[in-house]
């Protein structure tokens, strides 16, 4: 049997470190392995014995790209366990903070990491020579997102201002005013960005995915909602573990999350858009329609357009939240630790992020479970790669490799979420 292995030793323009292996046997794709050589950091183990109130700041350190997502899922899970309800302006401020992270993370991925694939550059810096305005606009958007994080959180990476029950300090209306001006400009830039990426050449690609996202009665989902899919899944967050399971299989080397009933599924912007298009509001819906994007999109290469649409939405939503803001009477509601189990799921920029904690009577963590979005997408990414590799098998190896890498970047994988990733074990054939 004629076999060869194509290896991409270092996946670039992704957060974290990974590699890809394709096994080709007798002219057909025999195996696809997306391997992660991110060393395990054992967050779920080191959280045991820590105070529940420490979970937001500790789990933020899982990912420097989406620390707010970790803080939000941790906060909501601990608050769930302790019977704490955070509502009104405090809830709105959390949503505003999350909008900042979406803008920052999406702008980073769209312009600095993913756009170079479509335009044939190795990176955004070399792309800047030919597309200077677009790169500058992307950096300006990223900076606008970071300004939201800096004002509400104290700093861009690992913000310091959230706590169980609310915040340490809340802004005045006057402090938010300059942010509104920044976001007005960002909103116009985001629309221009969306129009720019919508003109990229998109490979023909469609698959019958099961899309999974949060769904809220009246909001585009960020912090809250039920977990739904396009195949009838509709569960409370607390039932996550009954519906999804993580498999630890020898040859694939990663804990891969799957639906117990049906296997692989897709989380992230494409899933959110398809399941929550009606929650985007008329102006964002009109922009999506103008760009040829309708719910039911099954081409993951177009996720870059969806991401840009979500940046527009996040700017609009942030402006709405700022306009409606009245400072709460206190920066946090009272919190009394107690024994119990709490769960939460929020929409990280790259998809749903599930946390569960079991706590003792003093509020110390007895057990923690964290399921990051990339571990949920991993088997879907491998399925996509099998199709891309089969289609492009006749191409020169460099091109095949580039197409596969682009296929991986469709998911904005955050490999640093190493709570659940393992080293590659080479499968013996």
């Amino acid at each position, binding site marked *: 049997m004629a076999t060869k292995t194509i290896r991409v030793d270092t996946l670039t323009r992704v957060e974290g470190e990974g590699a890809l292996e394709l096994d080709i046997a007798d002219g057909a794709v025999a195996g696809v392995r997306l391997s992660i050589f991110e060393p*395990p950091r054992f967050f779920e183990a080191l959280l045991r014995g820590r105070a529940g109130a420490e979970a937001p700041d500790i789990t933020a350190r899982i990912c420097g790209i989406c620390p707010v997502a970790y803080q939000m899922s941790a906060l909501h899970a601990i608050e769930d366990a302790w019977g704490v309800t955070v509502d009104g302006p405090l809830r709105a401020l959390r949503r505003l903070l999350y909008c900042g992270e979406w803008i920052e993370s999406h702008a980073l991925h769209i312009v600095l990491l993913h756009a170079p694939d479509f335009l044939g550059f190795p990176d955004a810096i070399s792309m800047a020579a030919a597309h200077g305005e677009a790169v500058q606009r992307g950096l300006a958007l990223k900076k606008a997102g970071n300004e939201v994080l800096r004002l509400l959180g104290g700093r861009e990476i690992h913000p310091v201002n959230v706590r169980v029950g609310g915040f340490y300090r809340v802004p005045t209306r006057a402090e938010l005013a300059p942010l509104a001006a920044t976001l007005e400009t960002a909103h116009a830039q985001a629309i221009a960005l969306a129009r720019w990426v919508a003109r990229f050449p998109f490979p023909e690609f469609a698959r019958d995915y099961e899309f999974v996202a949060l769904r809220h009665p009246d909001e585009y989902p960020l912090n809250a909602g039920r977990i739904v899919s396009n195949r009838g899944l509709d569960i409370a967050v607390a039932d996550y573990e009954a519906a999804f399971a993580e498999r630890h299989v020898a040859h694939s080397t990663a804990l891969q999350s799957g639906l117990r009933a049906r296997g692989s599924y897709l989380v992230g912007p494409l899933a959110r858009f398809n399941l929550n298009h009606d929650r985007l509001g008329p102006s964002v819906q009109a922009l999506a329609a103008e760009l040829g994007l309708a719910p039911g999109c099954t081409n993951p290469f177009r996720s870059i357009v969806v991401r840009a649409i979500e940046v527009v939405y996040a700017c609009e939503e942030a402006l709405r939240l700022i306009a409606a803001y009245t400072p709460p009477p206190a920066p946090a509601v009272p919190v009394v630790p107690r024994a119990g189990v709490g769960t939460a799921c929020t929409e990280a920029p790259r998809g749903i992020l599930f946390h569960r904690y079991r706590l003792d009577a003093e509020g110390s963590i007895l057990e923690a479970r964290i399921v990051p979005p990339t571990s949920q997408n991993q088997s879907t990414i491998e399925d996509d790669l099998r199709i891309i590799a089969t289609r492009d098998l006749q191409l020169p190896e460099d091109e095949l490799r580039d197409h596969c890498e682009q296929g991986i970047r469709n998911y904005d994988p955050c490999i640093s979420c190493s709570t659940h990733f393992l080293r590659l074990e080479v499968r013996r054939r």
Partner: protein
Amino acid sequence: MDARPRPTLAVWKFASCDGCQLSLLDCEDELLAVAGALDIASFAEASSTLRPGPYDLSLVEGSITTAHDAERIRAVRAASKRLITIGACATAGGIQALRNFADVNDYIAAVYATPAYISTLATSTPISAHVKVDFELHGCPINKTQLLEVISALLAGRKPDIPNESVCVACKRRGTPCVMVAHGTPCLGPVTQAGCGAICPAYGRGCYGCFGPAEAANTAALAAAWTALGADRRSIHRAFRTFNAAAEPFRKESDAHGDENHPG
């Protein structure tokens, strides 16, 4: 125009969250200028072009937690004229160094169903435990202004201007009332290296030590002050045992308040 070749930069990642190298991409206003002044030869998070060394300057993020990484950092050192470690993982082992105080096999079993597939060291150690480091930039995450200063200084052949003061000094300069004095909030500011801009006290919160121990930090005196404010042993133990838990002054102080039955 200056015809001299630009100095080459490489950015490396070990066990970490990516946040410190993201700080470089977070320099939105300076990124293109940095890319103009430096030849970015290897930065996997940002570019598909990965050129082999030698490099004039390497930035290293993350701690050493596997035998493979212990080898890899030696190769990075050999290929780098100057090597700067960035962040709490690279300078002190990071939050993942909590394994150093526990049984790593218990850690593996707590997370993974099939422990046999996991290959890891029992400890998470800073880069300086493995190779010579030319400069250490602290923080979880680092401050991007300090990062630009260190890069500029090393390129200009001068000593980076990174003050060795505590967060207390930064708070005074910022005009933030002391949170310990004003509202009795326990704060690690007196024993923590400045550099963050004293953000936490400015937001009404005690410093949680993410920049690691300041020089000559009197941790025992601070722990006594915390006790006077009503903090129990366990919370003092936890406070010193976070993102810089393996940095010596913090390790010693957390041990002084440790309890074998309560490792956290």
